[in-house]
Structure formats: C-alpha cells, structure tokens
C-alpha cells in the first residue's frame, strides 16, 4: 500500500521531469517563500527533539523528513 502510494508520487515526479517545465514562480516572486515563517525546519535542535519524543511514545517512525540515530527507546 505504502509502496504503491510512493510509486505513484514518484511517477508524477518523473512525468513532470520529462516535460519542458519552466519555473512558474520567478526568483523575484519568492519573497514570501523565503520568509522565516515558511520554513519546514526553522530550528533544527528543537524540531529534532520533538521527533525524538514522538518516536519514543508512538510505534510509527519515519516519513517526517527527519534524520536520527538509534536512541534505545524500546
């Protein structure tokens, strides 16, 4: 199920990559995107700690864009 979902998303990327796509958001239009409030990981230490708390309390892991090592949370 998960692999199928991933394959569909990857296929979408490939199809997009094959066509002649031109950047539709020009560099001078990216002031909002560049704002600090638009960051997925504004403060890496704080974000990584919260991922660690979730990993220790929940069976789910991964899929959160975070990297990390083993923590002996079993």
């Amino acid at each position, binding site marked *: 199920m998960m692999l199928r979902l991933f394959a569909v998303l990857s296929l979408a990327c490939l199809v997009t990559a094959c066509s002649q796509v031109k950047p539709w958001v020009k560099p001078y239009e990216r002031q909002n995107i560049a704002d600090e409030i638009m960051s997925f990981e504004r403060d890496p*230490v*704080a974000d990584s700690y919260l991922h660690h708390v979730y990993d220790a309390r*929940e069976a789910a892991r991964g899929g959160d864009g975070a990297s990390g090592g083993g923590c002996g949370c079993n």
Partner: protein
Amino acid sequence: MAVIKRLFILLAWFVQPLYAAVLPDERIDVMYHGYDGGGAEIDGPSILVRKNIGASVSVAANYYVDMVSSASIDVQATASPYSEERKESGLSGQYLIDRSTLKFGYTQSTENDYDATTYSFGIDQSFFGDLTTLGFGVSFGEDIVGQNTDPTYKRDLQRRKYSVNASQIITKNLLASFSFDSMTDQCLNLTDEQSCLNNPYRSVRYLTSSGNYAYQSERYPHTRNSDALGVRAIYYLPYRASLRGEVRKFSDNWGIDAENAELRYLHPYGERFLFEVKYRVYNQTAADFYSDLFPFLNAQNFLARDKELSPFSSTTVGLGVTYKIPPGTIPWFNKSTANFYWDHFNIDYDNFRDARVSPEEYGAGQEPLYSLQADVIRLYFSFWF
C-alpha cells in the same frame, strides 16, 4: 528494495539542474528540554554548532543528554524506579557541488544498557530553477542492547533506513514536501527464545488457573520492516502569517497501521515576536502479537505488552513564542533569538489496562484503561554568526 533502487536511478537520470543550492545557516543553538508525564521525568541539554568551511562545506556538531528519572507504569508494575543518563553526540557535514548537496552524518548514543551507532549518507538536488528539490538518503545503524541486571546479556541489532524526500514550490505562497522512509531492524545471532527489539525489563501478563494473573518475559520477532509516507505543506496567508499542515501514514510487518495529522499556525507580532499554535492527532492499531492479558503461559510464539504497540489515540496541543533579541545586545552574533515552546500530550490507550490497582477490587482484565498526560518544554537560545 530493488524497485526503490531502480526508482532512484531513474529519478537521478531525469534530474536537470538549473541553479545552485545553498549551504545552511551558520548558527549555535543551546536548548534545555524537559518531559514530564506518566511517572517519567526526562530532561537535559542539547547543543548544536554549525559552521561553514569555505564556500562549499558546512559542518555541524551536536551534543544531547537525556537525564531520566522513571517510575512509569511499567516500572511500577514489575520493577523499581530508576535513574539513568543517555548521551548522544553527532557530527554531520554537507558538501555543495554546483546544484547538488552531499550529506554525511555520524551519531553515537550511549547509556548504561544500550549503545547505538548510526552512519548516514544522502544527496539533494535542486532543479526547475530551484522550484523542486529531490533528495535520497540511506542510514546504517549498529546497536548493542544490554541489561543492567545481567552483565552477560548482549544483543546485536542492525538498523537500515532508506529515504526519498522532495520539496516543491507550488505557488509564490505555497510550499509542499513529501518524505518516504523504508526502515528495517534486524537482530543478529539470536536463538528463537531471545529477542532484541523489546525492552528486556518488560513483561507480559497471563491468566493463571486461579483466575489471577502472573508475569513472563516478552518475546518479539527478530525483524521489523516499516514504511512511512508523510506529506507537508505551508501556506503564506494573505497577511504575514503561515498555516502548516502535515499528514503521515505508517505501516509495518508487525500489523501496526498509524496515521497522524497536524495543523500549525505561525503569527509574527511586531518586529520581535513570533507566536505558534499547534494541534496534532495520532492513532495506531496494535501489533499482531500484543495483548494486555494473555490467556495462559506461553500462549503464542511472540508476546508483547508494550503500550507503544497497543492500539491508542493521542492529541497534542502546542504553544510557543520566539523573541528576536535586538541586534547588538549580544556581541559577535548577527541575530539571536530566545524561544520557549510547550506541548501537552494526551494519550488514551484502548487496550492497555492499569495493573497497579488492587487485585481485590478489580479482577484480571477488568482494570481501568490507562491514559497518559505529558508536558514537553523546549527552552532554547539560537545565535547566527
């Protein structure tokens, strides 16, 4: 895994770089973290220093400590309260080659009964005029699981993680990303009776012929494979504030399916403040071999009574504030912030009972269901230079 490898090759082939990527900010973060809930108190410092070397290399070092004082429900039911310390240190680096970023990482975590070493490697590539960034990564972990009460107890655990990440600027106000992780844990050199993926101190309950219950050790499978897919988006609202949404789906070969969703609102106030409000929901099904109370001794091949493998749902509410310290207040740094974030967890277990109650008052398997409330704080200072 062969399918994933072929996808990596295809994706790399189609990537057409147009603009260069950039190195992350040079910064120092000093954090105090605290967790208090369910009878466990865990706190300690975390420090990150990240520095560029020349125009194409960034290196970072992180030191993290968990000071644990635990009298959790597991501990109260079958053991004694304990204190311990976990120390984690990490080194990572990024190397910019034109439009690509190569990433390397090393993490070492040690405590008195668990050692973990992780090596990671990844590559990011930006293309379509930096509208799209595609990355993949692998990490290899070697753990040694010990037990304080038995110096001869030693279990080798091998961890693998394969990741694909992509982020996309969709409009001038909308940014999205997805992450897919496939992970494998594998115990090495164990007999059928031994386990390495569980907490060696934890036990399961089983019914005895007298109608009461007794305890026996947990027994887990020797492997665990899981897949997780997360999709996130941030939208810049018509005024200066952002709304962030996240959904994730998870499944593993132990029979656990989980989903979570989160909404986060970030609102700057004046020139110095940034306020954040967050709401997150999470729920999961149980592992196939989980039971709160097994019908008899050695009822099945695998036995677990870890509440993290039981079915439950949880909600998290978070509030936070960032204060930008006026420039010049702290010398040497271009920008500094003081931050305080608080998260409140509420976890309701659907099939994990509170066995601490009196057996005279509640029969075996009739105890009240357990629930856990926890508060998590992050107090940190960040300095850019």
